[in-house]
C-alpha cells in the first residue's frame, strides 16, 4: 500500500492527468443526463444575465457585419422595389391594352416589339408574330394610343413593321374636327407632317388627325396624332401641318396587328390604273 502511495506520489502528474481525463470522459458520456442538463441550464441562464448587463458595450466587429448585412438587404430590397415598379408599369400598360382590345371594333392581335430602329430615315420595328399567327403583309399595326405603321414583310414567326416615322410611309388622313383630308408623311428632318391641305381651309391646332377612308390598307378613324403647328408653305396653295404623333415611338414595347384585309377588288383596280398610267408615261417618253 505504501509502495503504491509512493508510486502515485512519484508519478502524481500522470496519475492526476489520468484521473481528470477519466472524469472528463465520464462527463462527456453523461452529457445527456437530465440533472446535468438542468444544472447547465441554470448556469447558462446566470451567465446570460451577466452578458446582458454588459450588452451595451458596442462590438465594432458585430457592427461591421451588421452593416454589411444591412447594406446587402438594402441592395436586395432596392432591386425588388425596382422590379415591382417595372411590373406595375407593365401591368398598367397590359390593362390598358386589354381594355382597348376588348372595346376595339377591329380584330386585333397582340404582339411584342422585339426590335426597332427610330433614329434612321427608314425606321422599322420587329414584332414577335408572323404568318403563322394570321399576319399578312400590309396589315396596319397600332397601339392603344394610335397608329404605328404597317407590316412590310414577314415570315412564320416575325413581322417587320414599316413605322409611321419612316420617309417611305404615306398615310391618307383626315382631321377629326374640320374633316379636311391630306397625306401624313415623315420628313427627313424628323417631323411628321400632313400635306396637301389647301391653305384656304383653316386648320386648328389641337385637332386630332385620324386615318381616312381613302386608304386601302388602313381602316378609318385610327388616331395618328394631334396638330401641333400650322405653317404656310411659301409658293404653294397648301399648308404644312405639323403633327405630334399619338404613339411614342421611342418607348412602345407592345403593339396590335389589326387583322384587316384590304378590299382585293379595289386594290387590283387601283393597282392596274397606276400601272397603266406609268406605261403610258413611259410610251410617251419613248416616242
Amino acid at each position, binding site marked *: 500500500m505504501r509502495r503504491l502511495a509512493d508510486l502515485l506520489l512519484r508519478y502524481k502528474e500522470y496519475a492526476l492527468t489520468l484521473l481528470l481525463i477519466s472524469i472528463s*470522459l465520464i462527463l*462527456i458520456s453523461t452529457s445527456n443526463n437530465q440533472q446535468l442538463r438542468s444544472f447547465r441550464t441554470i448556469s447558462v441562464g446566470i*451567465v446570460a444575465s451577466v452578458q446582458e448587463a*454588459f450588452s451595451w458595450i458596442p462590438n465594432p466587429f458585430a457592427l461591421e457585419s451588421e452593416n454589411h448585412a444591412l447594406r446587402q438587404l438594402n441592395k436586395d430590397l432596392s432591386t425588388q422595389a425596382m422590379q415591382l415598379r417595372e411590373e406595375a408599369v407593365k401591368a398598367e400598360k397590359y390593362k390598358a391594352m386589354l381594355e382597348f382590345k376588348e372595346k376595339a371594333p377591329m380584330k386585333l392581335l397582340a404582339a411584342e416589339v422585339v426590335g426597332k430602329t427610330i433614329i434612321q430615315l427608314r425606321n422599322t420595328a420587329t414584332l414577335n408574330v408572323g404568318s403563322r399567327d394570321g399576319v399578312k403583309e400590309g396589315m396596319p399595326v397600332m397601339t392603344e394610343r394610335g397608329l404605328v405603321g404597317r407590316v412590310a414583310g414577314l415570315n412564320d414567326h416575325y413581322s417587320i413593321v414599316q413605322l409611321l416615322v419612316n420617309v417611305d410611309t404615306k398615310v391618307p388622313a383626315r382631321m377629326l374636327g374640320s374633316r379636311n383630308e391630306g397625306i401624313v408623311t415623315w420628313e427627313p428632318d424628323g417631323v411628321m407632317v400632313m400635306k396637301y391641305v389647301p391653305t384656304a381651309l383653316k386648320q386648328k391646332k389641337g385637332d386630332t388627325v385620324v386615318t381616312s377612308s381613302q386608304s386601302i390598307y388602313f381602316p378609318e378613324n385610327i388616331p395618328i396624332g394631334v396638330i401641333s403647328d400650322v405653317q404656310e408653305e411659301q409658293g404653294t396653295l397648301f399648308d404644312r401641318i405639323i403633327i405630334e404623333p399619338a404613339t411614342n415611338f421611342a418607348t412602345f414595347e407592345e403593339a396590335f396587328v389589326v387583322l384587316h384585309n384590304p378590299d382585293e377588288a379595289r386594290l387590283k383596280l387601283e393597282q392596274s390604273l397606276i400601272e397603266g398610267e406609268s406605261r403610258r408615261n413611259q410610251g410617251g417618253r419613248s416616242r
Partner: protein
Amino acid sequence: MPSTYSNLIWYTISGLLLLLVQLNLGYITIEGIAPDLLVILIAVIALREGQFIGIIVGFALGLAFDVISSNIPGTNALAKVVAGFVIGSFYNEQLSLQQSIGTFRFLFIIAFGTAIHNFIFDFFYVEPTDLSLWSFFLRSGVAGTLYTVVMASIVMLVAARKKT
C-alpha cells in the same frame, strides 16, 4: 499549491475574468476564429507554478467553461487537462518569469499546447460540421492556434519588460 496566496487570488480573479471574456469573444473573433485565452492563462500558471498545478487549473477552467458555455460538458475539461499537462512539462523552476514567459520559448509552448488542445477539442465537433475533416482542423485548429499565439505574444511582451 501556488507559490503565494496573493498569486492564488490573482489566478482566481484572472480565471473568472477570462472565462467571461472567452464567452464574449465576438469582439475579437475574425471570420469565426477566436483565440483561446484560457489556454494562455493555463500556460502562464503552469510555467510559473509547475505541471501539477497546470493540470488542475486546466481541468478547473475547462470544466467551468463547459458549464457556462454550450459546449459538450467535459470536452473543454479534457482538452485543457491535456494542454495543462503538455505545457506543464516545459516547467523549469530555475527559470525566472522573464525567461519562462518573456521569451519566444513561451510562444512555442503556447503554439504546441494550443495545437494539441484544439485537436482534442475539435475531435468532438468535427462530425456535425459540413466542412471536410482537413479544412475543419485547418480552420479551427491551425487558425485558432495562430490567433492564440498572437494574443500570447502580448503576454510575452509584458513579461519581457517586467523585472523579476
